[in-house]
């Protein structure tokens, strides 16, 4: 993996032609997304440039503490972002934060413990970023679904509580469905990987001039790590969040307006 490519800012600027095309399509077909497309392009430029310099600093400093600090920031921002998509779930922040933390710690811990990657910034930072990003999406989808399920099924949940079931028993079927919806997207995309789309890591490595077999192996490792982290984060987040719908006396709380 010694090959690398060097790109100038001019080349990046040239690719803005495609952003302009996307904006033009939006304007032409009146999907009213031009503004969002421009905002997305600008934000991605600023965020990626900033993180690029941060990663450069972390690589040069070569200390595990900076890596942990960066991963912590990612987890906290991930939990905030995911919370905004789980508005119907009361107190969603802590379940998300705990879910993301456990998913990141377990996944990174395992890939290091199994000797897959060295515990150095060069591996931990990019892998951690992918793991946390995917775990965030999965737990946001899961909690969003949980909120919808519970608010649509209040009568059924209360009917089960009325039999003397615990909150866990009454919410069980809905927690299961939420967990499933949080993980199924990645499971499905993993199934079709290589047939319908090329995953990003592999594309990046091929572009950077790596051997296709190396690119494929690294991609497989990442996909498997992502499957694990997505399942863990969605499991922990749903398993903690459903409790917030209930009082200690196993009553379904009134929905927050």
């Amino acid at each position: 993996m010694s090959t690398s490519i060097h790109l100038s800012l001019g080349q990046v600027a040239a690719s803005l032609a495609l952003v302009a095309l996307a904006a033009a399509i939006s304007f032409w077909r009146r999907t009213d997304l031009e503004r969002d497309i421009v905002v997305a392009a600008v934000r991605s430029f600023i965020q990626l440039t900033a993180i690029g310099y941060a990663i450069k600093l972390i690589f040069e400093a070569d200390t595990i503490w900076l890596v942990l600090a960066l991963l912590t920031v990612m987890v906290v921002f991930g939990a905030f972002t995911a919370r905004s998509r789980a508005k119907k779930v009361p107190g969603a922040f802590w379940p998300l934060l705990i879910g993301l933390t456990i998913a990141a710690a377990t996944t990174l811990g395992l890939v290091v413990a199994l000797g897959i990657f060295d515990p150095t910034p060069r591996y931990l930072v990019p892998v951690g970023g992918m793991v946390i990003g995917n775990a965030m999406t999965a737990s946001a989808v899961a909690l969003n679904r949980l909120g919808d399920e519970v608010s649509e099924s209040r009568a059924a949940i209360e009917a089960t509580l009325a039999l003397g079931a615990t909150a866990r028993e009454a919410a069980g079927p809905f927690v299961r469905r939420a967990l499933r919806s949080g993980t199924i997207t990645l499971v499905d995309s993993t199934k079709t990987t290589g047939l319908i789309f090329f995953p990003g890591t592999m594309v990046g490595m091929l572009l950077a001039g790596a051997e296709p077999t190396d690119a494929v192996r690294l991609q497989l490792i990442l996909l498997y790590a992502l499957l694990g982290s997505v399942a863990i984060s969605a499991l922990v987040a749903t398993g903690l969040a459903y409790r917030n719908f209930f009082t200690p006396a196993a009553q379904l709380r009134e929905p927050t307006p």
Partner: protein
Amino acid sequence: MLFELRDVSLTRGERRVLDSIDAEIEPGATAIVGPSGAGKSTLLRLLNRLSDPESGTIAYRGRPLDSYDPLALRREVSLVPQLPALLPGTVESNLAYAAKLAGKQLDTAECLRRAGLAAEFAERDVSRLSVGEQQRAMLARALAQQPGVLLLDEPTSALDSEARDAIEATLRRLRAELDLSLVVVTHDPEQARRLADRAVRLRDGRAVASGTPAEALA
């Protein structure tokens, strides 16, 4: 005394749903009567602690309601909700679930018979039941827990008059066969007269009369 409510109030948003309710519910059959929006169902839900009042006290058999374990209380004071809400599966799987929660031996055929359903309903999938049959399956499921009190929320509101009469006959027979108290929420004063020994009349969240149906509904 089965239930004793003192100065019970509850607000939902801006609305005072229950307003300083004082009421006594004796063993036997009691109807809670009033127009829709009077707070009947809300009051019923307080009796097995599906929700709690904001202020005031409720006692069950002389002890504060919140001194009971809520889960054990709900198996003893069983609520049959207005909208049938059975778990996916067969009628029997619903009964078995309820009996297991209550730690009771299940006699499916007996529960079905008492609720007015033939034994072959045990294997029927709940998605294939009529509303009246679902209502009876809910009743059978509550009976599977061998409760001491049945709380019934408008048990016949979704039914035609023939089905209504049949459910009422079932409820009267239940009282005769089992040592079971009933608290029935209904908007229909005639149903209260047919089913209950005593009645509490609610209007705009207040208990405006109580006593025998003749006294309370005059």
